[in-house]
């Protein structure tokens, strides 16, 4: 019994492994019908691989030369300002969002004072006390921002040597009304 044509085709392509390939070879050697069918396949392959290849390659080359004769390969120079960049819509949207964020960040950074911690206490007379806690590397910038380190006008007063001062509490500042003097 002859093998199926699909199996024979697979055998012809070398896709059937042993022991099946050996059995098919034994059958083909003794079967004229199968041998003739395989010979037909072989002829078709040779015709496709050699004769038809030569047929289309030559016309293809002629067409290519004709095209190149009319349209040179070198592209015309486009100004960098007129050059177009092709982007997918998600990428273009992402780029636009990044530009927007960049713009807002620049605006915020150019106007913002970088202070670490601030506590504000309102005094009864309308004054306000600010206590700042900032990282050490920001202290210089903070002092500079309030004129602490670069105030050009400086007066120096020298307290007499014999006067010994002792802290009695936290520094205080306010309107004179907030600190009444003792009556004699």
């Amino acid at each position: 019994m002859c093998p199926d044509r699909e199996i024979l085709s697979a055998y012809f392509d070398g896709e059937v492994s042993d022991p099946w390939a050996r059995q098919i070879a034994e059958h083909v050697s003794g079967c004229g019908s199968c041998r003739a069918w395989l010979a037909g396949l072989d002829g078709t392959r040779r015709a496709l691989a050699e004769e038809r290849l030569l047929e289309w390659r030559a016309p293809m080359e002629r067409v290519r030369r004709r095209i190149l004769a009319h349209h040179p390969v070198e592209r015309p120079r486009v100004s960098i300002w007129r050059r177009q960049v092709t982007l997918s819509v998600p990428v273009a949207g992402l780029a636009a969002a990044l530009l927007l964020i960049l713009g807002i960040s620049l605006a915020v950074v150019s106007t913002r004072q970088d202070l670490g911690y601030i506590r504000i206490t309102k005094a009864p007379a309308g004054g306000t006390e600010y206590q700042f806690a900032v990282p050490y590397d920001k202290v210089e910038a903070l002092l500079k921002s309030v004129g602490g380190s670069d105030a050009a006008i400086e007066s120096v007063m020298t307290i007499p040597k014999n006067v010994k001062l002792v802290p009695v509490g936290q520094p205080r500042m306010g309107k004179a009304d907030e600190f009444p003097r003792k009556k004699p």
Partner: protein
Amino acid sequence: MRTRVHSCGIVSVLLALAVAHANGQAQGTDTDPKEALQELLSKALTVTVSARILPPDQQEDTPVWNAESTKLTIPGRSIKVRLDGDNVRIYLICTPYLQDNGEVLLLAQGQVWFTEPQDNENRYVSTFYSIPVSYGEKVLFFPLGAPGAEGQQKNHLNIELEIKIVPYEKKQQ
């Protein structure tokens, strides 16, 4: 889906961002120097800082020691006073600002460097204040604590700094 973007469009957007940023940083104006000087003088302020060391009971009118410094400045420009003592150094930095209502907002910073006599330990205290004041109104600063503070001992001297701000032009009249 794809879209085409002109490279000049991208560059234009970046340039616009850079220009907007530069505008935010600085705005240049062309002003006549004489007019600018007159404008400055019309807003100039005289800041007087009087330092006093008062006796413990504060009943005497005469302080143990006093000194005064008067400086001319403009709104937004600091004046700095330094007091040097044997074991203390005090900085008072005053920056007056003019408010819309014609009064002055005094932004002040007090810095106190103090060395404890017993253990030779250094201390540093820095405080900021913002106080709305009228012209001529007195503001007091007690860098080592206010009189009558808790824990104050009777024999200790008190140091106080008095700040007074008046318009420069009015003072000349």
